[in-house]
């Protein structure tokens, strides 16, 4: 029966495309979703039933569907919004977005044109028009739209990136390079611009630079400044949405404020790994390590014998003096998931602290092999190798590490120390100078300089 709903929605979605058609409320009775999501749909649907001529109610209903990626239903509800409030630019804007999601680009452009008529100075309407026009192969239209976006929001990268894409499609790669370099000068974190720049470099034969840019940006996703879209994202009520919002709070250093909500979510999901992974750092951030240990131990008692739970405990317990227990949890984390770089890293760190240097080096190597290419991992590994009587290996590892972390004063400092131990005095001073140039703390550098001088003196037989 559910298949029929989709068919009806596709059909009604089309019929709602014109303001003249009477909108119908999409039937959510067979949508499968968590109770909190269904509650939101029911609430918004009831609102529309109470005021079927109220465009704002339809818009709110559309936003609820939209935020949960029910594009057909959202398109139908936004259709109801434009029917009842034809002068509301947001409704036309979101209707356009939904049509684009459904692959109806021509219809999306029609709706967006109406939104622009009603509110000409909202830049995202223009760059979205540009990107859809490009998808339809209409470069001139796209160029006009992107140009207008840059006029309205010159600091926002979207319009400039769009113009670079037009240039790339026209084969004017040098123009694209210039535009994208300018965007990145203003906003070096714009991964999308970096990706396109990589492609543009490739087109103009700057292959090495192309590969470097693409390597840097290969996991980047476009991030657009679109305040109307942000309103939709705030609507999400699923566990995923709620956790994502809380994570953003924790990342911003506001973990304590999110604790109450998180604890409530945990009561409903006491063994959920995603919840524990969010709650644990939030508790740590607010200094409640005992509570963090408690919730993870409870998850274990409830049968969640999972890598992440053990890893949380391996991080937390040593802070409360239970080092051996922490080490055991780290070992169990590795046992449960040998693919986890984090598990190998934590196990390696604790082994190092326990003075089991050879085992620690092995674990840290496994962490590196699985992609944990952090400076701190290299540093601990080098120390473990040196203490395990393999300073040559430590030096070789550090020499490789500095090639990919050339900005790390700490790595050069450790390299200087290891080279001094190996009586490579020139090499030690060279690494020391690099470390100094990179701003490594003077007080620490002085100590390293003393060790190099001692090694120098030993070499002279003093």
């Amino acid at each position: 029966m559910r298949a029929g709903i989709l068919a009806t929605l596709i059909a009604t979605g089309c019929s709602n495309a014109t303001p003249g058609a009477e909108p119908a409320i999409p039937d959510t009775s067979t949508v499968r979703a968590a109770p909190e999501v269904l509650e939101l749909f029911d609430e918004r649907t009831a609102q529309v039933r109470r005021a079927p001529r109220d465009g704002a109610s339809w818009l709110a209903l559309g936003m609820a569907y939209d935020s949960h990626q029910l594009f057909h239903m959202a398109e139908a509800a936004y259709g109801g919004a434009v029917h009842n409030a034809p002068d509301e630019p947001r409704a036309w804007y979101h209707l356009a977005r939904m049509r684009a999601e459904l692959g109806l680009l021509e219809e999306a452009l029609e709706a967006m044109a109406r939104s622009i008529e009603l509110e000409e100075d909202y830049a995202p309407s223009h760059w979205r028009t540009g990107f859809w026009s490009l998808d339809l192969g209409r470069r001139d239209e796209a160029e006009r739209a992107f140009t207008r976006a840059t006029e309205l929001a010159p600091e926002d990268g979207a319009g400039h990136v769009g113009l670079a894409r037009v240039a790339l499609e026209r084969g004017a790669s040098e123009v694209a390079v210039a535009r994208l370099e300018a965007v990145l000068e203003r906003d070096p974190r714009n991964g999308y611009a970096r990706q396109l720049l990589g492609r543009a470099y490739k087109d103009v034969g700057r292959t090495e630079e192309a590969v470097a840019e693409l390597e840097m940006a290969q996991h980047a996703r476009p991030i657009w400044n679109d305040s109307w879209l942000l309103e939709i994202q705030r609507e999400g009520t699923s566990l995923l949405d709620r956790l994502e919002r809380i994570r953003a709070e924790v990342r911003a250093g506001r973990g304590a404020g999110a604790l109450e909500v998180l604890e409530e979510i945990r009561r409903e999901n006491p063994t959920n790994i995603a919840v524990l992974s969010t709650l644990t750092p939030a508790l740590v951030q607010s200094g409640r390590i005992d509570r963090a240990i408690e919730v993870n131990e409870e998850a274990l008692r409830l049968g969640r014998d999972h890598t992440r739970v053990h890893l949380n405990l391996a991080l937390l317990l040593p802070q409360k003096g239970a080092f051996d227990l922490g080490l055991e949890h780290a070992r169990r984390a590795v046992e449960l998931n040998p693919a986890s770089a984090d598990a190998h890293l934590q196990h390696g760190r604790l082994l190092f602290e326990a003075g089991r240097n050879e085992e620690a080096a092995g674990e840290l190597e496994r962490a590196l092999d699985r992609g944990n290419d952090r400076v701190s991992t290299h540093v601990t590994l080098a120390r473990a190798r040196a203490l395990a009587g393999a300073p040559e290996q430590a030096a070789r590892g550090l020499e490789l590490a500095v090639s990919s972390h050339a900005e790390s004063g700490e790595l050069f400092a450790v390299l200087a120390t290891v080279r001094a131990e190996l009586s490579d005095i020139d090499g030690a001073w060279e690494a020391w100078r690099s470390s100094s140039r990179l701003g490594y703390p003077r007080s620490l550098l002085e100590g390293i300089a003393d060790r190099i001088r001692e090694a120098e003196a030993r070499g002279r037989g003093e």
Partner: protein
Amino acid sequence: MNARLTTVLACAAAAAMLSCKGGDSPPRPWFEEEAAASGLDFVHDSGHRDLFLMPEVVSGGAALFDADGDGDLDAYLVQSGRVVDAPELRPENRLYLNDGSGRFKDTTAESGTGDRGYGMGVACGDVDDDGDTDLYVTNLGPNTLFTNLGDARFHDATASSGTGDGSWGSSAAFFDHDLDGDLDLFVVNYIEWYVTAELDCRDMMGLADYCSPLNYDAPAADVLYENVGRGRFRDVSAASGVGSERGNGLGVAVFDHDDDGFPDVFVANDGEPDHLWRNGGDGAFANVALAAGCALDHEGAAKAGMGVSVADVDDDGDTDLIVCNRNRESDSFFVNDGGSFRDRGSSAGLRVVSRSFTRFGLGWVDFDQDGRLDLYEANGRVERQSIPYADDPFAEPNLVLAGRPDGTFVEVLPRGGTREPVSATSRAAAFGDVDGDGAVDVLVVNRDGPVHLFINRVPDRGHWAAFRVLEASGRDALGASVLASLGERTLRRDVRAASSYLASNDPRVHFGLGRARRIEGVRVRWADGAVERFGDFDEGSVHELRRGNGDREAP
């Protein structure tokens, strides 16, 4: 789904496609689904019960190959079962022999091919050069090599061959990487996954669902086995460099991207940059995907690479590449220009239509035999849909796109090419002429559902000619290219079994000829670069081209 609803759905889908502007007379279907009628009663079982274990959502492989040497295509279907069960409790893979007319009989028990690993994909090739085709099955856990004893009975040669890689294998391909005359083996691995480390993931609606591979952050390294003769292989992953980079690998295709005479390997990675392993000819491989322009899409983004297909789509003599991806990500259609790729998905008309679906199996095939390659995409979600197409919340219809002379593609309606809409959670799609009528059919494995056999019924098909291209020993000459003139065009079609997703395809080379009745100036460029001229051939037959029987061209 009842007939009325399916009709409504078909009309709605068509209406959506045509942007609600209505259409002319109803289009005529290209395929009829005839699995049950043909005797293929295989039902895939992913093992999904209550937990959401990652392997369940990507398994389901298929091969079309000649198991018994009678000249027609037999079917091998890879089964999965419950991840947590012991192998002896799992259902087995199945081999069906074709009687030549497209009717199949299950001969698994007699054949000895009933592997009970948690099955993923399959590769076919004559590893011992004895003239019959052997099977390599990838599993979650140790893979299995079955060597063909010549009469559709097989021997498990995994241990003696040394090919039982124990990772999570996905697609695999036989090819002669060192051009020494025997087939080596490339095995793609997906992620390092442990049931004890499975995660809790939720969908947008707050319900439990499968995770993204990126959640595990545990990409795996692929494996290259070198055939050292006498049925033995040596793992050269580390020495060759193939083991030096990890990825969430799913699809694979082998082709000489830079036309330097050595076969390269493309691997589609799920959520990570794809790999293109350039064969240096000295045993060393280097991943050149970023520099060659096929690691990322036209905007520089890494997509969820699933299936792969390669062919000379634009008739310029080199091999182009398509990688299909998940919903909200368009196909990446990498057009080859002298060894460097440009993603032309958008201008070829593939961007908008493809991104509504999660595509797995795919292939460039000239279904209507007009001389232009068409595209088939077998679809099915990796997360449950809130408003599903069918009772199976992962199910989606497949897509067929017709190639046009201007290099663009247009969707064939009714959607999926069948009169009644067919929605399933499709994974492997294997391509080949199952019923011997000269037209290419499609075998599709569906997660937790019966297999589909789409028999080609394209109305008013053009003429055709096909070639079985063999080495002197009688093995399929994987890696060879057939070049032929069709009017002013020179068509190139390659002898290739491994492509699509978890699949092995008919290695015979198929040409659609349109109105032409003769194909002229057929030449074969063998994998080692030698070229032989075989002359002209009439339409309507499968011709054998054996190495040594043509006129050798001077290098």
